């Protein structure tokens, strides 16, 4: 056996995976120290199994030409890719000279040139933002959508850019408490939006949160089955558990974010929410799923689990149901296991010398399956 590093560091890395932080962020952060073990293409324009088409270069020249053709005399000073999303590309555009109401910073959300791991369209994401902005929910203000793939290589939309951070590690003490309170407040407000004022392309809202949960399990199971590169009996088994243990029969659904976390929130340095981003998983469902999602992504580590739940309740959120939180904790681990399986599907075999993306995807899938299996009570012995 190789010389093992301390158990503490091993647990830290596992906690990264357990908390839902993409394993790719760990690899990227360590790349300066990994030398030739690091595959520099990992997490960037990595080829996927089903490329949709070429991706036009996003640079100052191209984007300036596009904006000038659409708007007029503007100047772009920089175009920088940001974020580590697996389904879309996010680009920050700094304007040197703007016109009209155009802000000084824009964000371009563009379809990736390959099939993403989340099967929701960019148009759906944009339409959700438009509707939520109309309802006064603090989301990045969407500006316009471009369906013409000839402009920048893929469909894209433009939204308002914001200066802030999404790094939870920056928040401690009173600032972390403020952020927790803000985030809980935003969730409570979101869950109060009357669902008959919102539309999704999938159709009308489900009758209750139990029906919503069944729909989601079936939806993501079908997506996994369509893209699976190997049989995963535990994924199948967990899907059945989720179907059989659906909670909340009779309770009305709300509009939910689906992917709650500081990593998907633009925050000020002093702990205020500027905007809630990444709405690809948004749907009609159980508000408890949003709380469970936040806890799964580590929001409880800001100022404590109970503090987060108390803030949500004090902000007028839905009553807390612990058994439903536990259910959606299993659901989140299962869901992410399905996503990481799709990530495996897009990876090419490596020679074992570099830190291969499939390695981290496989590991993340196994860790999340084990978490879900423990939560479902299949075993207490499926150790990390």
């Amino acid at each position, binding site marked *: *056996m*190789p*010389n*093992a*590093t*301390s158990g503490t*560091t*091993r647990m*830290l*890395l596992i906690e990264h995976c357990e908390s839902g932080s993409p394993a790719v*962020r*760990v*690899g*990227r*952060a*360590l790349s*300066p*120290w*990994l030398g030739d*073990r690091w595959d520099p293409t990992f997490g960037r324009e990595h080829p996927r199994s089903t490329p949709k088409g070429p991706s036009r270069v996003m640079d100052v020249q191209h984007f300036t030409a596009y904006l000038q053709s659409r708007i007029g005399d503007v100047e772009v000073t920089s175009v920088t890719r940001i974020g580590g999303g697996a389904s879309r590309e996010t680009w920050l555009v700094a304007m040197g000279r703007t016109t009209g109401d155009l802000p000084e910073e824009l964000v371009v959300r563009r379809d990736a040139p390959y099939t993403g791991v989340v099967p929701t369209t960019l148009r759906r994401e944009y339409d959700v933002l438009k509707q939520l902005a109309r309802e006064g929910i603090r989301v990045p203000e969407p500006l316009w959508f471009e369906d013409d793939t000839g402009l920048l290589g893929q469909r894209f939309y433009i939204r308002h850019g914001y200066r802030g951070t999404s*790094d939870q*590690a*920056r928040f401690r003490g009173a600032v972390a408490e403020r952020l927790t309170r803000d985030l809980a407040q935003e969730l409570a407000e979101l869950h109060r939006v009357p669902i008959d004022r919102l539309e999704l392309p999938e159709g009308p809202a489900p009758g209750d949160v139990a029906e919503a949960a069944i729909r989601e399990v079936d939806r993501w199971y079908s997506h996994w089955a369509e893209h699976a*590169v*190997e*049989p*995963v*009996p*535990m994924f*199948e*088994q967990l899907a*059945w558990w989720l179907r*059989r243990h659906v909670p909340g029969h009779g309770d009305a659904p709300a509009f939910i974010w689906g992917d709650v976390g500081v990593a998907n929130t633009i925050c000020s340095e002093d702990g205020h929410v500027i905007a809630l981003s990444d709405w690809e998983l948004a749907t009609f469902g159980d508000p408890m799923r949003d709380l469970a999602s936040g806890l799964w992504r580590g929001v409880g580590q800001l100022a404590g689990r109970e503090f987060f739940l108390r803030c949500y309740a004090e902000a007028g959120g839905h009553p807390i149901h612990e058994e439903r939180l536990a259910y959606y904790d299993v659901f989140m681990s299962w869901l992410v296991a399905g996503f990481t399986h799709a990530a*495996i599907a897009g*990876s090419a*075999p*490596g020679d*074992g010398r570099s*830190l*291969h993306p*499939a*390695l981290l995807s*496989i*590991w993340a899938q*196994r*860790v999340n*399956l*084990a978490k879900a*299996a423990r939560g479902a009570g*299949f*075993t207490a*012995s*499926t*150790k990390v």
Partner: protein
Amino acid sequence: MPALQEGFAREQAGLMLSLLEHVRLRLEHEVPLLIEDTRDVERVLREIGEPVQHDGSAAEDDSDWLSVARARNRDASARLQTALRAQEEAWAGDGPVPDQLAALRSVTVRQLDRQRSILGPGYALGT
């Protein structure tokens, strides 16, 4: 990404390099683990009366034991998944878990535990 403190980053990098070595060693031991898993799955499938299509003699002369072991394990896993789905569909969910379904569930758990000890890019892709 925020700048990492060098000490922490070096510690994490050391862990990742250890894991790469671990992967290399696991690849050396992957064949017996896959064989063990395949045998476990096929044993339970036989016990519950599911047909076992693989007769255990195909490609025994194939020198690429790793590819053979992976292919057989994928086949066993696929049959396990199919049998599991059929048993779950047949059970209404009331009362005690039928013995056959319980047996399949337990082997799925053992399989997950074994799979988590096998990390390598080629394993999941069956190459």
